[in-house]
C-alpha cells in the first residue's frame, strides 16, 4: 500500500500527506520519481524533504525541523481552497461505490458507534485537485452507500459534485490491502483496476458489499521494484508501518 501510494505522487506536485501510510509513501516518492514534490500538513507545515525521523503524527518535532514553511492551518487550507494543491490522501471507516467516506458514526439508531470525525479530510475531499483514498479492504468497510457523508466522493454518481458546486476533482483512485481501484468516468462508480499479487478478483468481490465491477483491462498490480523496497526500508527501518 505504501508503494502504491508513492506511485500516485507525481513530480512537482503539492500533496496533502498528513496521515500514516501516505507519509511514508511521500518519502518513497521523493527518493525515487518525485524529487520536487512538496508534502503539505494541515498542522501548518510544508516540506520539500521527508521528516528527519519516523513520526506518529504530523506535528511531531522531526516533521517540523528542517521544514520549508511553517504557518497556520488557515494558510495551508487557503492553498487548498484556491486550487494550488494537486492531490490529497484521505481514509475512512466506510467507503461506498461512489467513493464517499464516513468517519462520523456507523450502526443504527439502537447502537451507534461514534467515530472521531472529519479532521481535515472533508476539506481535502472537497477541495483538492484529486484525492486518493487509502484504507484496509474489509466487507464491513466497503458498503453500497455510506450512512453519513463526512468526506464527499462522487455523491450518487456522475454530475453530483458539479451540481453541489464542489471545486475539487474528487477521488481518482482507491488503494486498499487487496488492490487498486479507479472510478468509471461515465458513472463515477468504483471499479477494480488491479489486484495485488496473490489476490484474485473474486477475493476482492468477497470483501466488498456491492457488485463491484472490474475495469476492462483489469490486471495484477505491478510488483514492487527493488528500488521501491529499499526506499521503504530506508524510511521505515523498524517496520513500524510496513511490517
Amino acid at each position, binding site marked *: 500500500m505504501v508503494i502504491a501510494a508513492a506511485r500516485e505522487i507525481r513530480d512537482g506536485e503539492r500533496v496533502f500527506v498528513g496521515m500514516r501510510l501516505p507519509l511514508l509513501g511521500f518519502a518513497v516518492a521523493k527518493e525515487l520519481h518525485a524529487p520536487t514534490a512538496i508534502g503539505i500538513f494541515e498542522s501548518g507545515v510544508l516540506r520539500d524533504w521527508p521528516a528527519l525521523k519516523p513520526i506518529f503524527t504530523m506535528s511531531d518535532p522531526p516533521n517540523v525541523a528542517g521544514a520549508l514553511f511553517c504557518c497556520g492551518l*488557515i494558510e495551508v487550507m487557503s492553498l487548498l481552497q484556491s486550487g494550488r494543491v494537486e492531490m490529497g490522501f484521505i481514509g475512512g471507516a466506510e467507503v461506498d461505490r461512489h467513493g464517499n467516506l464516513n468517519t462520523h458514526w456507523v450502526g443504527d439508531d439502537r447502537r451507534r458507534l461514534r467515530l*472521531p470525525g472529519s479532521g481535515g479530510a472533508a476539506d481535502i475531499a472537497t477541495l483538492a485537485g484529486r484525492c486518493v483514498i487509502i484504507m484496509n479492504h474489509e466487507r464491513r468497510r466497503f458498503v453500497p452507500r455510506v450512512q453519513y457523508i463526512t468526506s464527499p466522493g462522487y455523491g450518487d454518481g456522475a454530475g453530483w459534485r458539479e451540481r453541489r458546486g464542489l471545486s475539487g476533482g474528487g477521488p481518482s483512485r482507491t488503494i486498499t490491502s487487496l488492490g487498486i481501484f479507479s472510478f468509471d468516468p461515465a458513472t463515477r462508480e468504483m471499479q477494480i483496476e488491479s489486484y495485488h499479487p496473490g489476490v484474485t478478483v473474486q477475493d476482492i468481490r468477497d470483501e466488498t458489499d456491492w457488485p463491484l465491477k472490474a475495469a476492462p483491462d483489469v490486471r495484477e498490480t505491478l510488483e514492487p521494484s527493488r528500488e521501491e523496497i529499499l526506499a521503504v526500508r530506508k524510511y521505515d527501518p523498524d517496520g513500524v508501518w510496513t511490517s
Partner: protein
Amino acid sequence: MPKLHSLRDAIAREVEDGMSVFMGAALESLIPFAAGYEIMRQRKRGLTLMTTISDMQFDQIIGAGCAGKVCGAWVGNVAAGLGHNYRRAVERGEPGPLAVENHSNFSMALGLKAAAMGVPYLPTRTLMGSDFGEEPSFAGVRCPFTGESLLAVRAVQPDVAILHVQRADEEGNAHVWGNLGVTQDAAMAAGKVVLTCEEIVPHEVILSDPNRTLIPGFLVAAVVCVPLGSHPSPTQGYSRRDDDFYFDYHARSRDRAGFEEWLNHWVLGVEDQDGYVERLGSERVACLKPDSDYMAAPVSYGY
C-alpha cells in the same frame, strides 16, 4: 495587575463551570495537557470543549465528567485510534451526556478567524457536499458579486483559549514556533487567553524577535510557567512526543474502571504538575529531551 500565577490559581480564576474552552490549537503538539489535568482536579463541570483535532486530551476531560459539549473536527487518539471515553459519552451518556457540534479543521479555523476579525461569518467552498455541512454552524450563501453558491461558517468565539507556548514574558507576550495550527486565530477569537509556557523570559527577549510574537500580552489574562506542560505532546525545541503514554492510555481507558485507575494515578492522585512530573520519573523525563538543538540562523533587525 500581575498576570503570573500558579496553574491552580489560573484555572480557578479564569475557567468557570459552563464556559467554552478552546485547547489543542496547534493540533498534535503544544497541547496544554497540564492545564487539562488541573481542570479535572478542580472538577469543573459543563464545559464546552472546542478544538480542531483533539489528540487524547478531550477524551480524558470527557471521561473525568467535566464536559457537556464538544465543538470540533476530530476527537480521539491520533496514533492509537478511537477515544474510548468520547465513545462512551456519545453512545451511552457515560459518565454524562455529551452534545457534539461537528466541524472540519478548515471550518473551525474559519469560525475562529471570523470571530478574530469581528465579523459574524466567513464564506468558504468547503463542506458543500458533507452531511455535517447541514448543521446550524453553517448556512448556504450567495456571493453578492459573482452569484456563486458558498457556505457561510458562523463565527466561533470561545470564552477562553488555553494555549501552551515555548516562552512568554510576565505580561503574556508570547513567542511560538513550529507548526502553528490555529494558535493565533484562537488567541484572537477568544474572550481571553490563558498561557502555559516552558519558560518565562525577560521582555527584551520578546522584543528581540517580534516576528516570533504570535500573541500580544494584552489578549492574555493569566501566564503560568509550566515546564513539560504539554506532556505527553511535544513542544518543539523543548520536549519530544511521549508516544508510549498515548498507547498506554488507550489500552487502560478501554473500559471505565481502567480509565478511573488511570485518572487516579496520573491526575487526581497527584497534587499538581510537579507531582505529575515526579511520577513520570527522572529517567523518562530525560528521554524526552530533544537529541539536538537544530538552531535557526540568527536574523538581524538592524536599522
